[in-house]
């Protein structure tokens, strides 16, 4: 067993045993407390440039299922876990976690006190970390010197448009680092989907004659993207129903004048109750967020808050006052996490149907 280290920006170091790739990597350290779905988590592009600490004790128990990837080419920078099981083939002919991580050059460390790391992060706030062979001064110097890219969306989103044909509504998905769960939910509703690059203009999008537009999830801070993205949203929302998720939600808020703040500690998990304000009901959903809409910055003439996280108080959903445009911070597709709010995709379909029924007029 190769011994390797997770070293943190604040000088702390955690020894453990290597699995997956033996690459040396640096990224932001985030803890994910969801109890299932290690495959969905690792393959989610939102973890581009991030090292994921799992608080669930054991991953790899079920191998990797062909229908549960959230992207084809995962870009996480590392996986830290207490225990991993390299279980491979079964009835489902699944591949093992170790092999998958090696294929994608993602290093892993197990046999680590992940609970201590989680508690440490919670106390100290977000920080960078590296997975290294030796935890010496040189390694810490390298860690401090590493500047993580702010071009994350450009690195993970599709450079070219592609279709996912079906017979139903025409949906354009703007890819900021799309997770497949969104496509799965649209497919279930028979949507004829076209995925377009993140920097598509409103003209390009509207020329495809959409019934609705989805702004996808993705990695990094929304302010790293150029103004042109916001102009696209400002135009599109006046024309067709719009549904923003994750990074898409943050961009929708920015485009409508709200501000975004960075969370002291990123929140990744599905244990926070989210309240839907109109019904006063609570539900749960996968949340993977490093940023949040600043509720004080919201222009109430344009937007109103639809959902709020009852634990940290963050805005979890917004709705435009004038247009059928809405957004949520969390992942209603439930990949991974509860599917309590998957009905939001039905709401979106409903908006599209209404628009079509009224031929685009006053829907």
């Amino acid at each position, binding site marked *: 067993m190769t011994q390797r280290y997770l070293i943190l920006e604040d000088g702390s170091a*955690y020894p453990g045993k290597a699995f997956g790739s033996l690459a040396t990597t640096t990224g932001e350290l985030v*803890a994910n*407390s*969801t*109890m*299932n*779905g290690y*495959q*969905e988590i690792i393959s989610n592009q939102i973890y581009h440039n991030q090292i994921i600490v799992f*608080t*669930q*004790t*054991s991953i790899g*128990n*079920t191998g990797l*299922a062909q*229908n*549960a990837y959230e992207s084809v080419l995962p870009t996480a920078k590392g996986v830290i876990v*207490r*225990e991993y*099981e390299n*279980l491979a083939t*079964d*009835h489902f002919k699944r591949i093992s976690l170790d092999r998958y991580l090696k294929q994608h050059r993602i290093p892993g460390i197990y*046999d680590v*006190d*992940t*609970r*201590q790391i*989680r*508690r440490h992060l*919670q106390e100290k706030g977000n920080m960078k970390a590296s997975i290294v062979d030796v935890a010496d001064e040189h390694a810490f110097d390298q860690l401090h010197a590493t500047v993580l890219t702010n071009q994350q969306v450009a690195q993970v989103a599709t450079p070219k448009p592609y279709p996912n044909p079906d017979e139903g509504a025409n949906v354009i998905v703007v890819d900021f680092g799309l997770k497949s769960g969104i496509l799965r939910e649209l497919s279930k509703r028979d949507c004829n989907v076209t995925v377009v690059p993140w920097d598509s203009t409103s003209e390009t999008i509207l020329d495809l004659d959409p019934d609705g537009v989805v702004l996808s999830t993705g990695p990094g801070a929304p302010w790293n993207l150029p103004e042109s993205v916001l102009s696209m949203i400002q135009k599109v929302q006046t024309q067709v129903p719009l549904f923003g998720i994750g990074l898409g939600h943050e961009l929708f808020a920015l485009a409508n004048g709200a501000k975004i703040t960075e969370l002291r500690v990123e929140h990744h*998990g*599905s*244990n*926070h*109750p989210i*309240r839907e304000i109109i019904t*006063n*009901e*609570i539900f*749960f959903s996968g949340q993977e967020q490093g940023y949040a809409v600043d509720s004080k910055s919201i222009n109430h003439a344009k937007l109103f808050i639809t959902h709020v996280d*009852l*634990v940290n108080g963050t805005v979890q959903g917004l709705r435009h006052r004038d247009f059928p445009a809405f957004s949520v911070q969390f992942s209603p597709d*439930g*990949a*991974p*996490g*509860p*599917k*309590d709010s998957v009905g939001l995709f039905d709401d979106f379909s409903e908006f599209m149907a209404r628009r079509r029924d009224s031929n685009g007029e006053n829907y």
Partner: protein
Amino acid sequence: MAKTIKKLLLLGGGPTNIGHENELDAAAYERLQAIKKTGAQVIYIDNNPFSFASESVQAADVYVQEVTFQNVVNIIEKEHPDAIMPKIGGLNAMQVAWQLEESDVLADNNIDMLGIRPVDLKRVLDNQRLRELLNEINEPIIASKIVPNDDEAMDFVRDVGFPVIVKPFSASHDTSRFICNNTDELEDALEISFERTYIKHVSIEQSIVGYKEIEMVGVRDENGNKILVSGLEDMDPIGIHSGDSIIFAPTQTLINQEYQALRTATFQIMDAINITGTCHVQFAQSRTDSNYYVTKVSPFFTRNALLAAKATGYPLSYVSTLLEMGVSLTEVKLPQKYSKYLPFMEPTMDHVVVRLPLWPFRDIPDVDQHLNTLMKSVGSTIGVGRTVEEAIMKAMHSSQFSPRDILPSVSKVDDDAVINQLIHPLASRVLILMEALRRGFSIDELSELTKIDRFYFYKMNQLLRAQDYVINNPLSPTAVEAAHEYGFGDGMLAELWNVNISTIERMNQNSNVKVTFKEIEPSAGEFREATNVFYSSYELENESVPCKGKTALIIGRGGNQLGPNAAADYYTAQILETTRRAGYKTIIMNTNPNAISLAPALSDKQYIEPIQLGNILNIVNLEQPDIIFLPGNRHYLSKKLKEFADLNIVVLPPDQKIAKFQQGTATTAVDLFIDGDRILPITTISFHTKSRRTELRYINDYQQPMNRWQTDERPLIKMAISKIDTANWQGLVQVLFDHDGSGNYTFTGIRPIRITESAFLNKTTGVNWIDALVKKYLHVLDIDQLSSFYQPGIHQRYSIMEAVFPFKELQSNRTDGASTQEVGAALSFKKIENPIES
């Protein structure tokens, strides 16, 4: 917001038996803490003499009666409660609640049923209606049909496919079931079944034997808000009762999609039955595709619902109580040590809990010991660890397996017998699985034979490898580290390497990896909760800060087996309470998930750790307790602990080995409390057995006061006192006599009052004698306060405690048993018509 409830009728769980231990009492105790905060008065009905919860209710409001329809009706007529809470009393209480509704008792007396509306309760309790309900909400259930002839049976099979289960449908007690895998087997089964049914109908259903069994526990409030407390995975497939299965929390082998589908289904069912508070739903999950079936809906507190709470640290009973009373999830206020978000955050775990059942076959060997759809275990232990291996190992060395063998070998069993037991498992299931691995069966073969997921075999293999490493590297530091990583205890290492445990302790001190204690809390490190429940693991960060001030460590009994276990748990709880009142910080160590002594409100700190020497010493080293209580007769442990001269150990009750018998029989006893040279009579007791035997080991029914008390009590007490030498006898002491039937008593022995009878005395005399005993050892007893207690010769009633045996549940023909075969007891009172003073 909550409706105002002034008077609540709470239905208790009754005597412990197979299927329920003290967990209902523990939940009731937590529930009563919650109700107290609302100011409501509680009327409590229960006849379990080992109930601790009932003692936190005003004595006048406790009805020691069996929870039956008629008894409850009588109490309602007398007490006029506003509401009834049946959810804590198991299935029996739910059925009584339903009868109350059916007969309009609830409506006539304007009583609300809390937790579930009567109309919904009916839909859950009636199997046919439940099937209709689940059909309505599109939740899959196994296909099942009553057929009058072969043709319809064949049609059914053409629809659902093989395998199917065929049973004669009749009012007789024929429990035979036939699993049919093909047409030939089906034809045979139909022929036999039609012969056996009086009404010429046969029940046929789709077989899901071999499916995974998954359990989900959730809570819901009146507004429809829900959280999932935890999922549980049974290692053993459908076909083995979940009470007899090894259970893991969280689930280990479900992918996210499968898990979420079951979570969503649980919520849909909870909405459909409009439940408030807890709900437990069981599923059969296919191994080959993502299909599942709903197999059971329990809208009340079950053993495994409470296991889910224990595993996650979620205060389920407390929260559920308030939800049932109409408080919403977001308004629940918990005791201060918890974060305010806790009631409505979905628990997430960063540890693994393994539950291992314990079976009664050592004490009752002459029954069918195969594990099947009838539950046979009488208790369980849990192991908590940061890895699956560690948790399995800790559960195993908390269990009945000898501490000498790391993983006991069953090498005497031949290969054919191993294969037979893989297919038809016995209680030694887990040992056979490991033995098969040792003998080179492949994991694929084993998974095919047993329908146990391959994952678990990988884990067992790891344990076997670790064991080999430890055996082959005696006294090596790396072997100690490997042992710790996989959950092997220091006591095991000492036994295995044949050295004193202090040798291992010295090695630990030089090791880089030291024992740490981690908190069991439901946020996986996101919040600094103070649940004060800990388990050990060999990692970097220790979270357990030693208690300040005077501290007492109480070493619980571990998993229940037959004998005085339920009583011992009650006894342990009493020690905790008295010690705390005497100004000590109390620390309990236990592994029984159903123990009342592990109720969070009852102690300052809880360690869920194997009751083994090494684990005890780890805790002692950290906490440095001023006093250690060891309830019950545990010779090995008390001997080993007493080797550590600096430990202040109190064994209660004192070891039965000090008992002095003239002969091993008795019919009558005098119970005394002795402090210094003061001897206080407590009461007299007549012993009964159903088979009229007088050997002490068969005595299991007690009556207080004795027969012929009018004439014989005073002289007998005098005689008893004359037998006592206070230099030898202190505390709770019982003097035994044989009665010849005509007023002559022969002295037969003296012994410390045993645990079960101590509990009985508490319930019948109105004085807490266990409390007095503990105070005596803490040197805070005020003997004068007790001295005026007993007045022989004035009795209004007989108190009777009768043993409960699990014979019927185990399908045994026995009717009477020894005290080592008891699973619980029932308490009752009988009025004395003419209490004439002698």
